[in-house]
């Protein structure tokens, strides 16, 4: 792959809080048009990495390059902002605005489109995410899955080229987790954006991603295809990937030591 095939390149990214280093030199290259998942245990800095990329946090050092232009350059940052959308862990929907108003907000504030056009595009985005019937509902009156779809509708209404997903399945049950990852896969193919997802849901991420990376202790411990990740025997990967098997083994040991009395 040549450099132009990568829409986003992260090099030596470092970020700390109050003297505690969270990211310790992250290197990452995200291929254009792919679903790229960053896996890792909780508290390893996945969300911090995404927020640095999304320009919500300012990195201490390192560079983030979007289509060959470093985001330190204000013009490049502005261009990136226009072409990128961010899906927050808690959806970050405006609770005082209806679903339609939430979707219309980025168009109203960042484009010079007329009212009618904004209404049409917003309604279309809601329709594409099967949310048209809920246009007048406030986010607080929607289910968790619907809120996620609404947040995605708001993210795609500006037709971004890259969408950053911060723990899109946090706090959801397995069925809803599958639904959210299916949604990401479905709409990524439909709208052809590049999806950068940070998650700790390994099986779902491996099923939908084109590339995965493992972030452990502030560094990328592994990067490759889901197939290679599943087959890898690297200790960092196996420890995280096979955590369920490890749990089974621990439970078996506990049960053999303390057999049930009844």
């Amino acid at each position: 792959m040549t450099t132009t095939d990568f829409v986003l390149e992260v090099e030596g990214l470092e970020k700390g809080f109050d003297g505690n280093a969270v990211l310790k030199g992250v290197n990452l290259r995200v291929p254009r048009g792919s679903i790229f998942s960053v896996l890792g245990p909780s508290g390893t800095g996945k969300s911090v990495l995404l927020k640095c990329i999304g320009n919500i946090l300012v990195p201490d050092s390192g560079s983030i390059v979007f289509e060959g232009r470093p985001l330190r350059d204000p013009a490049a940052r502005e261009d990136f902002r226009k072409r990128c959308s961010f899906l927050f862990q808690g959806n970050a929907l405006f609770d005082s605005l209806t679903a339609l108003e939430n979707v219309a907000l980025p168009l109203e504030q960042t484009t010079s489109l007329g009212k009618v056009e904004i209404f049409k595009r917003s309604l279309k985005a809601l329709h594409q995410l099967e949310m048209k019937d809920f246009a007048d509902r406030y986010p607080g009156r929607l289910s968790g899955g619907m809120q996620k779809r609404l947040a995605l509708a708001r993210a795609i209404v500006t037709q971004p080229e890259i969408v950053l997903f911060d723990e899109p399945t946090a706090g959801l049950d397995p069925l809803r987790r599958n639904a959210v990852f299916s949604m990401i896969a479905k709409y990524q193919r439909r709208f052809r954006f590049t999806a950068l997802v940070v998650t700790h849901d390994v099986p779902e991420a491996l099923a939908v991603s084109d590339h995965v990376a493992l972030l452990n202790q502030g560094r990328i411990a592994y990067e490759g295809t889901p197939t290679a990740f599943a087959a890898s025997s690297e200790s960092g990967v196996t420890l995280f990937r096979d955590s369920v098997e490890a749990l089974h083994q621990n439970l078996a040991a506990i049960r053999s030591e303390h057999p049930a009395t009844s």
Partner: protein
Amino acid sequence: MVRQLGQTTLGIVRDTGDFTLFCGRAFLSVSKTRRLPRRILRAVYEQGAVCLPVIAIVGVFTGLVLGLQGYHVLSRFGSEGLLGTLVSLSLVREMAPVLAALMLVGQAGSAFAAELGIQRNTEQIAALETMGVNSLGYLVAPRLIAALLVFPAQAALFVVLGLWGGSLSGSVLLGVDSGVYWSAVERAVEFRDLRECFLKAASFGVLSTAICAYMGYHADRNTSSAGARAVSASTTRAVVFSSVTVLVADYIISSFFI
């Protein structure tokens, strides 16, 4: 002790500088915000219309109390005829801008600080920034502009209702001649008094709204608490700082006019 004093002083200077930059950025963001008039109208409604009943009640009762107390003080000197002067100048120069501002801080200001704090906590402000929307322009600037309109208007309403309250207690209940009361009002209030009233009201409006906005917008900076507690702490700080600032600013502006 010297070190602590130095740190406190530096902290105050840093916070004042930060607050000034915040206000400057908020006003400058006006040019970058689309559909601003609609947001200003909404802010005028939230600050003005919603607080109207409170302002009206406090205005009438302030006038009633001024009429009652003023009558008993002036009657000692046989000067009941000056009741209109006392009520009108007290209201126009001091009571109306200060009390209206304090009422607005308590109702609209606290609600604004809490709203911004929740929006900060739930990443709604971060979401605006990632969308390329200037959060200060979208959330704060309309309120600041609305405050310039609402606070003077509410102070004017306060004056009118306060004068009526003063007339009610002085003339209707205590027997001061109505013509004497209203002619004293007319003679007492000059253009410079009205200018002082509106200048104070506008200044209090901008200052208190900016403080409430600053506290709510930076609710996440609170190191001693987080989440809902941080929002409640920032709201309390917003109301306390705004109220104190209104009174301090009142003294400073008054000293220029006297």
